């Protein structure tokens, strides 16, 4: 530790300076990417000042405790980080296309790429995506006004964002870790990785992990305690069931990661011997801890996607979900079993065959509930009134590709086979095959499905469908060749290869990665184009898809308090039931005052001090670490001692807003499903003859 003013930080730590002094290909690529940070840091404030948007940004968004806005912030963070992740993935695939006997990138640069790619994609893309979507949807589907702890929700977001800040700034100042997203010691210990890279990993992952724990607590309490009157557990939409399981997993399974980060940090900073090679240290302990978190993490990501797919399947085939109880039971089984399989990530560590067999069998068992779900989704589609909207295309891609990914997982669950393909590209292909069609497709389907609910207008179907197909094709072209290359013996995380037979597959994969880049651009294009056409796409009446659950029983976008009157739930598909009975838009007899939490900068302060703390600890800047730490402690104390005033929205105001919407809905003639994707769709659904026939048959 140094105690100078700037700790270990020097001018040469800044990537741009380094590239100026030593302009080779690797430094220039990194510097090019790094230059985007100062440029962005300059451009964004200027843009905000010029447009005058800074005031609404701070007042209406950054200070907001509205769950919908916090959800949108999470998703925005995820999309920004996805940009980095996709670019890094593409760079690696392009590099491998030329990497027979060595390629463009240096080994150290390549190591950084796969480490940041993995860390970014898991912790700063997938996690914020699911947290964001859960934030937006849970209270609405539940018939609640907000999550249980709105301020805690904000804090959770800003802790995640400060983790994201650290991993982003590592591009500009210093460098990131080279030990993979799982950061196994002893390589990541202070002897073999003396630089700041691993410290960046520890702090960004650690901070966002605490944020995720807090979100888990918040969602669990929301789902337990804030269900609308009559919303029993077995009446909850399936997305809520998966969210409940995910929240419990988050609460119980983030701690092993936190502990792994803390202990590795103690090793690196204070010379402890948890995972060192000498004095009794045992690196297997880290691997064990990491995967006790890491495996349930896979289900934390996948279960919400299953939830989204359940909603999509049922809405866009206008049928109730087939086998609801079986999917609920399957979800819970998966959640519990996920605690029992972590060892399959290190079958080759050296334990006896019995241990491997037990964990291998436990892993195989998970295929049963998952398979059950797939059959349930298929049965939901069967003989439904199917519309091939964008979410349905993602669902179809999911059903085919995810099943393939699952099957390769079953292959890997057999320890004897795993010994052959462990740490090969086969594994890389497998987990991308589960995570992209599983998690990413699910989240994108959810984005399309719920976008109108949050913003008040639909996303363009034409662009949406193109994007969906680009993701499906891009994924297949990129990752199926990796299975073959893996079976041919190509190691994962290897910078080059010596077998010319592998190169054709690498070239195909590189082409696929370019298609995935296009898919990402098309996603941005979909959103931008739809914003431009938002007047035509507006669905203010709230129900563009003729959907079944409570979130659609509100206008689009919903008011800050979600529901003027908390709904009474009498059946599983509560909104569908109300539409059938003709009570969906009926006048309300009595309105009451609504209490709302006030906007606050609590979360922003916590995030700012946490970022300062993280950065200072990475660079061993003593005084700044102390400042960050004291700030992080002082902010909660200050807010606890400050007076707290709720905003009270008077009943008359609520009544005015709500009645305007209800009257408009009653007076408008809805559209049938044939016109779902047309400009005539204002968010009010009308059953057509076919649908009435179906409904009768379903009874």
């Amino acid at each position: 530790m140094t105690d100078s003013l700037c700790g270990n930080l020097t001018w040469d730590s800044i990537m741009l300076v380094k590239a100026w002094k030593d302009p080779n290909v690797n430094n220039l690529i990194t510097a090019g990417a790094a230059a985007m940070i100062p440029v962005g840091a300059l451009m964004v404030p200027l843009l905000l000042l010029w447009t005058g948007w800074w005031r609404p940004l701070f007042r209406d968004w950054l200070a907001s405790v509205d769950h919908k806005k916090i959800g949108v912030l999470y998703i925005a963070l995820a999309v920004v980080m996805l940009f980095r992740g996709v670019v890094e993935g593409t760079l690696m695939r392009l590099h491998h296309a030329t990497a027979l006997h060595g390629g463009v990138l240096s080994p150290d640069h390549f190591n950084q790429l796969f480490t940041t790619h993995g860390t970014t994609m898991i912790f700063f893309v997938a996690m914020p995506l699911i947290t964001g979507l859960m934030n937006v949807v849970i209270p609405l589907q539940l018939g609640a006004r907000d999550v249980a702890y709105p301020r805690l929700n904000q804090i959770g977001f800003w802790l995640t964002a400060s983790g994201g800040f650290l991993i982003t700034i590592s591009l500009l100042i210093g460098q990131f870790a080279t030990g993979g997203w799982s950061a196994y010691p002893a390589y990541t210990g202070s002897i073999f990785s003396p630089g700041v890279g691993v410290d960046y990993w520890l702090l960004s992952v650690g901070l966002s992990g605490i944020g995720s724990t807090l979100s888990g607590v918040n969602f669990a309490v929301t789902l337990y305690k804030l269900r609308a009157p009559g919303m029993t557990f077995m009446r909850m939409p399936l997305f809520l069931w998966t969210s409940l399981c995910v929240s419990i997993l988050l609460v119980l399974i983030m701690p092993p990661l936190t502990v792994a980060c803390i202990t590795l940090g103690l090793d690196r900073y204070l010379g402890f011997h948890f995972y060192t090679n000498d004095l009794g240290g045992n690196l297997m302990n880290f691997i064990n801890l990491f995967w006790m978190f890491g495996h349930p993490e896979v289900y934390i990501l996948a279960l919400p996607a299953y939830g989204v797919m359940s909603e999509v399947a049922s809405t866009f085939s206008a049928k109730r979900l087939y086998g609801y109880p079986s999917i609920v039971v399957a979800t819970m089984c998966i959640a519990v079993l996920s605690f029992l399989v972590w060892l399959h990530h290190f079958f080759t560590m050296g334990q006896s065959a019995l241990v491997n067999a037990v964990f291998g069998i436990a892993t195989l068992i998970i295929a049963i509930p998952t398979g059950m779900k797939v059959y349930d989704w298929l049965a939901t589609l069967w003989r439904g009134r199917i519309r091939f909207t964008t979410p349905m295309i993602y669902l179809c891609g999911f059903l085919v590709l995810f099943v393939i990914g699952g099957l390769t997982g079953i292959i890997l669950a057999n320890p004897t086979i795993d010994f052959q393909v462990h740490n090969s590209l086969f594994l890389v292909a497998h987990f991308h095959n589960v995570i992209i069609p599983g998690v990413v497709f699910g989240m994108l389907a959810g984005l399309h499905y719920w976008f109108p609910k949050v913003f008040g207008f639909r996303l363009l179907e034409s662009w949406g469908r193109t994007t969906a197909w680009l993701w499906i094709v891009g994924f297949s072209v990129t990752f199926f060749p990796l299975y073959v290359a893996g079976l041919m013996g190509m190691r994962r995380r290897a910078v080059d290869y010596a077998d010319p037979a592998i190169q054709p597959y690498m070239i195909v994969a590189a082409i696929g990665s370019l298609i995935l880049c296009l898919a990402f651009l098309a996603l941005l294009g979909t959103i931008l184009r739809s914003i431009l056409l938002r007047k035509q796409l507006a669905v203010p009446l709230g129900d563009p898809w003729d959907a079944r659950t409570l979130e659609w029983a509100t206008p689009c976008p919903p008011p800050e308090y979600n529901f003027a009157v908390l709904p009474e739930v009498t059946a599983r598909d509560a909104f569908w039931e109300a539409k059938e009975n003709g009570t969906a838009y009926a006048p309300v007899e009595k309105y009451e005052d609504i209490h709302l939490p006030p906007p606050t900068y609590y979360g922003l302060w916590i995030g700012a001090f946490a970022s300062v703390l993280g950065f200072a600890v990475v660079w061993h800047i003593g005084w700044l670490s102390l400042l960050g730490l004291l700030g992080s402690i002082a902010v909660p104390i200050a807010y606890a001692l400050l007076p707290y005033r709720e905003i009270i929205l008077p009943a008359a105001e609520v009544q005015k807003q709500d009645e305007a919407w209800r009257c408009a809905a009653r007076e408008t003639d809805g559209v049938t499903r044939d016109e779902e994707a047309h400009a005539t769709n204002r968010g009010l659904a009308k059953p057509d003859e076919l649908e009435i026939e179906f409904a009768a048959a379903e009874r």
Partner: protein
Amino acid sequence: MGSELKSYLTGFALAVLLTAIPFVLVATRSDLPLGWILSLCAIAQAIVHLRYFLHLRWRGQKREDLQLVLFTVLVLFFLIGGTIWVLGDLATRM
């Protein structure tokens, strides 16, 4: 007031007893199977704390809290037990 104060004092008395037993046995280097006694006293005292200090019951609204605690204990059993099993197994093979 009476019943709750009584609950605290009962709990405190039981906790003192359950603390004293293992300390005395270890201090006097007793020949009894100490591992078992230590574990049983610890578990019993944890239950005493949960029941008399934190008022967790099967009845009423505390039920959800109790279920939560029990599920967490189950998960901890999986994770700690699994860790000891796996790393113990590894240790015997090194």
